[in-house]
């Protein structure tokens, strides 16, 4: 009985200390923010009835493919990533998968007013315009273009593809061989390797000039930031890190979950193994403790 009382005192004291230094302290250090809703409520809806076939024409007429590739439709990139980054700061995204990861309302708004949709008014203005020029078409054209992008987007997209489309042009992911200019290939010789590294360095330098900072490699973000933080950050970076150069990228809830799942696969690859081994180790020590208790009772019966 006395031993249980002592144990209770220790548990209470350790519990209070733990509460103070972990949940409570962290709630004080990190200001509370509302969890992500992915509604993009500040953006206005675009005319609903888009016509995909008209959109195919509109995307040509409005000059989108002058910068963006649509590889699934055999429309190649006009420039390689390094040259593109020299011109625009960052390589413009390929549009093949874009509607599979980006919210459709957001997509229309980005075309219409990128600075507003990206929430980058603190970085771009009349004197320093955003690299993507303003759209002069009608709202119906917008709806058509979005309808077209939706029609060509794959129905199902892998977590890795979601990452590449949404994050991969700014963020390296070295633990899965991903670089901002694409997957790091197997090099046949040192010259190929040096050539690739030079390109990567040039692209990164352009990116840094464009953003004012080098976007971090995300390999360990699942451990350093955790699921919730990444999810809420992706939905609206400004809400959590005011003034950051990262644009709001307008991912859907599903696409964000895929990105987080991919980051978990890369940064916490052994999670499944950990969770499957855990119960066995605990069971071993439960059995150990029970046997030890029985042995102790047997031995102490002689001395008490």
């Amino acid at each position, binding site marked *: 009985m006395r031993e249980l009382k002592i144990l209770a005192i220790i548990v209470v004291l350790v519990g209070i200390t733990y509460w103070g230094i972990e949940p409570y302290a962290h709630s*004080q250090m990190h200001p509370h923010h509302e969890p992500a809703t992915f509604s993009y409520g500040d953006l206005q809806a675009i005319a609903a009835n888009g016509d995909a076939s008209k959109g195919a024409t509109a995307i040509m007429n409005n000059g989108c493919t002058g910068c963006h590739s649509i590889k699934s439709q055999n429309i190649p990139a006009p420039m390689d990533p390094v040259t593109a980054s020299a011109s625009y700061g960052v390589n413009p995204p390929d549009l093949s998968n874009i509607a599979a990861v980006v919210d459709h309302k957001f997509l229309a708004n980005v075309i219409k007013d990128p600075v507003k949709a990206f929430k980058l008014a603190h970085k771009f203005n009349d004197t320093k315009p955003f690299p993507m020029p303003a759209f002069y078409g009608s709202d119906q054209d917008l709806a058509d273009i979005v309808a077209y992008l939706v029609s060509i987007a794959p129905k199902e997209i892998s977590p890795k593809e979601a990452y590449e489309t949404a994050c991969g042009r700014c963020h390296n992911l070295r*633990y899965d061989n991903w670089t901002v200019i694409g997957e790091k290939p197997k090099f046949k010789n040192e010259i190929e390797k040096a050539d690739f590294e030079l390109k990567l360095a040039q692209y990164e330098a352009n990116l840094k000039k464009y953003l004012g900072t080098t976007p971090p490699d995300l*390999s*360990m973000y699942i451990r350093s930031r955790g699921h919730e933080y990444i999810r809420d950050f992706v939905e609206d970076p400004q809400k959590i890190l005011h003034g950051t150069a990262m644009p709001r990228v307008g991912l859907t809830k599903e696409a964000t979950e895929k990105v987080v799942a991919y980051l978990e696969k890369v940064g916490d*690859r*052994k999670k499944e193994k950990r969770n499957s081994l855990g119960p066995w180790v605990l069971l071993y020590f*439960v059995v150990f403790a*029970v046997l030890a208790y029985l042995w102790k009772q047997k031995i*102490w019966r002689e001395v008490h």
Partner: protein
Amino acid sequence: MAHITKANNLHEWLDQRLAIDKLWKVLAAEYWIPKNINFLWAMGVVLMTMFTILVISGIFLLMYYKPDTKLAFDSVNYTIMQEVWYGWLWRHMHAVAASVVFLVIYIHMFTGIYYASYKRGREMIWISGMLLFVTFSAEAFSGYMLPWGQMSYWAAQVITNLFGGIPFIGDELVIWIRGNFYVSDPTLTRFFMLHVFLMPLIIMAIIGLHFYSLRIPHVNNQDGEEIDFDAEAEKYKAGLKKEAKVIPFWPVFLSKDFFVLGVFMIFYFYLVFYHYNFAMDPINFDPANPMKTPPHIYPEWYFLWSYEVLRGFFFDVGPLSAMDMGLIAFGIANVIFFALPWFDKNDEVAPASRRSGGFAIWFWLMVVDMIVLTIWGKLPPTGFNAYIGYVAAVGFLALFAALPAVTARKKGLLMFVILMTLALYVAGYMEYTKALGNGFVIVALFVIFYALFFLNPVFVRNRGGAR
């Protein structure tokens, strides 16, 4: 020359040469421990087990770790955590054990204080134990640097910088410790050496000393009863096991320890598999970046109390800056527990609840103060938190200043210490509200306070009171 005969088996052969039977008796079968104990007496074996886990997991980690600022982070987070078979398990075990070992150390330490197991011949047990606390702290600090994450780097930056506060040699000392003008590759490599070689070596030697120091005064018991170990051992050996007040280390004492250990291991492995963030700070999964200071820098939880003693002094006192005042208190806090046996001016060995005077109150105030220091050591030191930190930091020193008076039952002196402490609280509050400014009063208060702190243990006479 021993008399060697033909041995019939390996046991006999070894016994003739190494006296293994006698050794076993001395180490275990006839190493006598009091019977009147509770599970707190098992913490030593729990600590030994945790240390063993740290050494073994450390050896496996050492096979893949690279002590180079360019390679360290990836060697830990990619090679060990993802590539090496069960590398993630060893790393989690190592990190979590390094954290919970301090929890057990604190329980062990406060058990010693509660049952007055640090005096009347047990001073060397206490001192060697405190040496282990200090060396474990150095081991933990050097180890925390190795993954070369953001917290590794900035903790190293802040802690090595503290040595700059030492008069005259401070600046040179910091450079000498870092091996450079700032925390960098040589710093990492030398702390790697300390972590995997020098500190473990010293720790093992001190563990030996700690165990040996138990032999002469013997282990204390739940009632502080003075036991004639030889007589009681004879009783036990004569078969009067129920009457004897002692038990042998093996198998009786250890059988209980194994059970406690089993329960503890369930707790430990639960943390290893499912609840490790407290020991593996998420911020340390960002690679070290000297150009980017994290918004909040804090040490691991087990250093928070002394860190808060450092931060608690938030205003200048006369010619001394807040940082100087903090460093003085921090330096004292880190060594003062060594002197505990001489701050306690009473020879009685008994649990705190049964000791005379206000020792029990003193004990629980100390526990509460350490917890407050720990929690506020992590909270941002802004607004009223700064004042709470000051109250707890001054309170920590005040408890030591008061201990001689408490244990010698000198009521007048105790009242004086309490009054001085309250005066410092008021003065500190006025500094907090910016009402006082650095006046002669606050300097005088601190001079008197520190005089009490240093003079009380020297001049208050021991009350005797042994039972």
